């Protein structure tokens, strides 16, 4: 059972990281959109393997489908023929960006290993075997402890809807 868990995790790990690198490195923006979709589906697989059923399903619906459709419409509306020159090229910008990202990665790893003293015990916990479905518990948490953020979120969605309509429809003279 542990081997199977590990194989699934290794598959998702490679899928997510390779497709994320594809987002950065692809010449054409459409290819990087497809890579982004694959990456989101891999992340939803991680959610399912962590027992977060509802989050995984929302990840597929929200990111894997609707964000991808939104993004593809934006690409169709905005892109020009010469957008390929905007891909990653060797320049000072790329060099400095890469060095900063690598530095932040090293800081994260250093922090993770408790300042070089080895992994803390909490990070070595492995998956407990009984898988549980968490949708019911998530819903009862959401509508009891977190009811105020939930309502504020609906207000934010309304404001975003109105704001997007106002900004997008302003071209009338």
């Amino acid at each position, binding site marked *: 059972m542990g*081997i199977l*868990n*590990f194989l699934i*995790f290794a598959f998702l*790990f490679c899928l997510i*990281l390779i497709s994320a690198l594809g*987002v*950065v490195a692809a010449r054409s*923006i459409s290819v*990087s*959109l497809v890579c982004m979709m694959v990456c989101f589906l891999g*992340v939803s697989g*991680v*959610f399912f393997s*962590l027992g*977060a059923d*509802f*989050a995984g399903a*929302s990840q597929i619906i*929200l990111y894997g489908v*609707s*964000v991808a459709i939104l*993004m593809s419409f*934006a690409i169709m*509306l905005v*892109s*020009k023929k010469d957008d390929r020159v*905007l891909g*990653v090229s060797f320049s000072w*910008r790329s060099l400095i*960006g*890469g060095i*900063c*990202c690598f530095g*932040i*990665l090293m800081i*994260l*790893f250093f922090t*993770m290993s408790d300042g070089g003293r080895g*992994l803390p015990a*909490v*990070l*070595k*916990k*492995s998956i*407990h075997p009984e898988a*549980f479905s*968490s949708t019911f*518990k*998530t819903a009862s*948490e*959401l509508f009891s*402890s*977190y009811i105020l953020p939930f309502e504020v*979120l609906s207000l934010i*969605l309304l404001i*975003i809807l109105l704001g*997007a309509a106002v*900004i*997008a429809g302003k071209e009338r003279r």
Partner: protein
Amino acid sequence: MLEVSLVHYIILSALLFCIGLCCVMVSRNLLRIFMGIELMLNAVNINLAAFAYFCDGMVLGGQVFILFVMAISVCEMAIGLVIVVALSRHSENIDVNSQDVLEDKQ
């Protein structure tokens, strides 16, 4: 060693976050910068799910906050793409280096 533990998920999340950050810092295309932001938010969500699973299996605050982060990031995506489309009407391309309409030209 062939046992998936919390540190594996955190390593995955850190790598994904740094790739997203690299995408934001390196790219000149506005749409690709948005893709990088989404990758970074997904890395954060993986962390939330992993800690909710391994540390408090009964409370599930992490899974609730995944939903909040998702909703906010989709809102941010919608507004951002609308701004990109509105920007592309005024200028001829979406290169971030050439967007200088707000620059103070004396």
